């Protein structure tokens, strides 16, 4: 892998995460990394490799399987002056740490008036064949909590830039990485000052006829569907919110007001999800501009299965997105 002239490299998603951690730990000795197998083994999926070798066992710690206390390690350490990054391997395991994340970390500033520079990394999505207790997508839970910032990088560039911003942020930030994308590539600035700002959506493709808001694995699929739609004369705008709390409402409202049509694509199920929030937002804010009913294109409201073909049967594919786009534009 070589750096191109302009300091941009094609990185895999996990490399984006890894580079962000190396750069931020190098830049600020208050940054520490804590989690199951993150140290010696470099993470169960290799995401944190070489960090312990580089920064030593004082700053990179393998924990026991104690999710609640792992989150608490981050809170307490942040309260006494560190900027910890804690890893809760899978989103599903965050369920063992909800009190610490929601009742404690999210309220620290409210109770104390102080900052709590805590980053929590986890992974979600049904990209691996890990079944119903490892692949759930309930990012909306955390986005409903005042005091938490929640980001969902959908590619290597954002995985790097958002994580770096999270680490530099003075408030608790949850970084929900996408398991199914760990080896997916995107051109990424190597620069250690490259950041992706929190709270700002990215328009991945501009278009006039319909706005597609997509997250995680669904972003690339939406881009592919948009490409195919273009061939059929339909101009699709694809927006990746990147940060889901606080959501970049302005960007979404601006786009939907312009296109008059909305499709939200995600691998969470529809009920009580980000897709519900985005559709509600469009209905409230773009009521007079909407030319068709907004569409939620989501995973079926069922548990995540293990075989790959069942997983795919459950979530939207490129064809489904194309069909929805076509339907909503009436072409």
């Amino acid at each position, binding site marked *: 892998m070589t750096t191109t002239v302009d300091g941009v490299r094609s990185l895999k998603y996990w490399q984006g995460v890894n580079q962000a951690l190396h750069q931020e730990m190098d830049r600020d000795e208050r940054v520490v990394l804590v989690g199951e197998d993150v140290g010696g083994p470099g993470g169960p999926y290799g995401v944190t490799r070489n960090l312990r070798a580089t920064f030593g066992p004082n700053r990179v710690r393998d924990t026991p399987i104690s999710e609640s206390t792992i989150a608490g390690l981050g809170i307490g350490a942040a309260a006494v002056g560190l900027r910890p990054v804690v890893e809760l391997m899978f989103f599903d395991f965050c369920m063992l740490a909800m009190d610490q994340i929601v009742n404690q970390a999210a309220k620290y500033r409210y*109770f104390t008036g*102080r900052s709590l520079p805590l980053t929590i990394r986890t992974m979600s999505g049904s990209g691996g064949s890990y079944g119903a207790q490892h692949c759930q997508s309930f990012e909306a839970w955390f986005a409903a909590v005042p005091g938490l910032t929640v980001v969902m990088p959908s590619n290597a560039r954002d995985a790097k830039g958002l994580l770096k911003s999270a680490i530099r942020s003075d408030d608790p930030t949850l970084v929900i990485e996408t398991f199914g994308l760990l080896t997916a590539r995107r051109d990424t600035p190597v620069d250690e000052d490259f950041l992706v700002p929190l709270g700002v959506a990215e328009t991945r493709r501009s278009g006039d006829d319909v706005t597609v808001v997509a997250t995680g694995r669904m972003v690339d699929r939406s881009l592919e569907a948009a490409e195919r739609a273009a061939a059929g004369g339909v101009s699709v705008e694809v927006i990746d919110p990147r940060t889901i709390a606080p959501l970049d409402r302005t960007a979404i409202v601006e786009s939907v007001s312009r296109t008059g049509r909305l499709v939200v694509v995600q691998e969470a199920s529809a009920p009580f999800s980000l897709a519900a929030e985005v559709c509600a937002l469009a209905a409230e804010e773009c009521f007079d501009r909407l030319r068709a009913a907004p569409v939620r294109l989501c995973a079926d409201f069922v548990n995540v299965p293990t075989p790959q073909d069942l997983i795919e049967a459950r979530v939207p594919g490129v064809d489904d997105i194309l069909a929805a786009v076509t339907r909503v534009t009436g072409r």
Partner: protein
Amino acid sequence: MPDDDRTPPPADLYRQLLLCRRFEEVVAEQYREGRVPGPLHLALGQEATAVGVCAALRRTDVITSTHRGHHHCLAKGADVDRMMAELLGRRTGYSGGRNGSMHIADPDVGLLGTNGIVGGGLPIATGAAFGLQVQGRDDVAVCFFGEGATATGNFGEALNIAALWALPIVFVCENNRFAELTPSSTHVAGEVWQRAEAYGFPGVRVDGSDVHAVADATHDAVARARAGDGPTLVEVMTYRLSGHYVGDPATYRDEAEAQAWRDRDAVARARAALTGTEAAAVDDEIEELLATAVDRALAAPTADPEELG
């Protein structure tokens, strides 16, 4: 004989204990006048735990407290005026009067917060100890919790990690014999102090009516922690003379047992160690302090509805 290095001079000791006691009694009066928003959990009878433990601490050491934590806050050095104002829902309170008793924090004096979640402070204190260790500071973290909290998952998790990493932490279990409306026998199998052994670090039990015993045990534990030798679990046997909350008739309590604790009340014993004049001077000082705190609080505007957060 108490080790003089390990507890403040008798008058100071009495002053601290009395402050905890009278602060809560005064707040309880205000509560009955309808001036305290939210439930109020008092630690009457438990003052020696807070004062004894904090006698072993510095300002830069940190503590986590509980839903029943006024005495911890005061003993760690929280500001009486700001606490009183917070409890009375005033804008001059620690968080502008918005949060009240279960959410008081003052990181400047090492008070990371009282907590509405039983056991919620265990991971946080463990994390603070971890942070202190990473920074190479010789400060320690102290985690206060009730015997009811030993049933929470956080308890075992925190003890295990503290032991594995030899963290500079002292776990102080304030065993006041009740968790809400049920006795500790509903909550604790075996003995709390013995739980430490299974994790390979020392557990001790002390008499919570003896502030010197509490201070001694904590000094040893803190010295161990500062030296890098890891955690200690101190179980303080005490008694909640108040109900679970102000207004709780506490019908589940055995009156004779309560009386036995009242008879060896640490506040009264600390007072008895002084001459009548000395004691009266402290009494006056504390009454004055609290009366002023109440006056100042009541003179301040109530929490600002425009400043939710």
